[in-house]
């Protein structure tokens, strides 16, 4: 019995030949219309017709490339490979992020990072990362599974306070910090990108719900939708 299920551990050589994995560009090309998870909310029309001033501004950064990068911090080839491709080090300190140009990386767990890049670059980045890294690593394109919202404005923090049990005070949440926490009975990766700017990475399946929630939570401050 036990010989059937006995797992075989890949040798170091097998682990290194990551290039043998079949990769697929998930984007169909510019001819096919892409729809973000909030397509049905029609934020473009809301931005045109809605309020122009208010305490909270919401903008969707849609159709970006999201890559989950996993590997051990003890694996020097993994960290060096990421550095070579991205041009900056993966943030190894818990709850931190790193950013350069259009690329940004969030610490998710001790062995997990979320890289967000322009949508068309994701496949190329994935290939280059796989090429540059070796050992026991994983890179998964999750672009279709989540989207990015940006909350900004003087009352953005008040909306966060309603939505998450996490302490978003300056003393606990400086610019650049990343926290994955409960967000309105759903979950979000919350990153502070500026004094009054907060980025939320949310799940596709919760996007509609969170859009409704954010409208409700920011109603008293005045919600401005930006396209």
């Amino acid at each position: 019995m036990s010989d059937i299920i006995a797992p075989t551990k890949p040798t170091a050589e097998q682990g290194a030949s990551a290039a043998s994995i079949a990769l697929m560009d998930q984007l169909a090309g510019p001819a096919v219309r892409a729809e973000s998870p909030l397509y049905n909310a029609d934020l473009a029309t809301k931005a045109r017709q809605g309020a122009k001033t208010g305490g909270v501004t919401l903008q969707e950064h849609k159709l970006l490339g999201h890559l989950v990068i996993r590997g051990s911090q003890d694996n020097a080839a993994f960290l060096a490979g990421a550095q070579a491709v991205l041009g900056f080090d993966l943030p190894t300190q818990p709850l931190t992020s790193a950013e350069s140009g259009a690329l940004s990386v969030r610490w998710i767990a001790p062995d997990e990072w979320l890289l967000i890049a322009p949508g068309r670059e994701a496949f190329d980045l994935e290939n280059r990362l796989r090429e540059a890294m070796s050992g026991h690593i994983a890179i998964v394109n999750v672009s279709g599974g989540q989207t990015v919202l940006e909350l900004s404005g003087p009352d953005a923090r008040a909306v966060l306070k309603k939505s998450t049990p996490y302490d978003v005070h300056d003393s606990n949440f400086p610019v650049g910090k990343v926290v994955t926490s409960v967000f309105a009975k759903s979950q979000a990766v919350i990153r502070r990108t500026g004094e009054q700017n907060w980025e939320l990475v949310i799940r596709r399946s919760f996007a509609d719900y969170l859009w409704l929630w954010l409208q409700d939570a920011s109603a008293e401050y005045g919600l401005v939708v930006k396209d």
Partner: protein
Amino acid sequence: MLLIYCPHCGEHRDEEEFHSKGQAHIARPLDPDNCTDKEWGEYLFFRKNPRGLHHELWIHATGCRKFFNVTRDTVSYEIKEVYKIGERPSVVATAS
């Protein structure tokens, strides 16, 4: 609500972010094919339910999604210690 320290994130978080996964340090029988039904049944189904110190497995479910161990007093709910998988607890029940 409890504030629970996540050893991976390095800070206290709200209880809402965590799930308890029951008793910690349950060793799987080394030779499952040759252990008795009693041994296997105890491994699968039988758990301690102490009054006092209890070592538990928790997961930071909406945070870093990592497992860790918690030593908790089941009477007062006080968390005595949090330690990573593979580490030994320093707070243990004294034999009485």
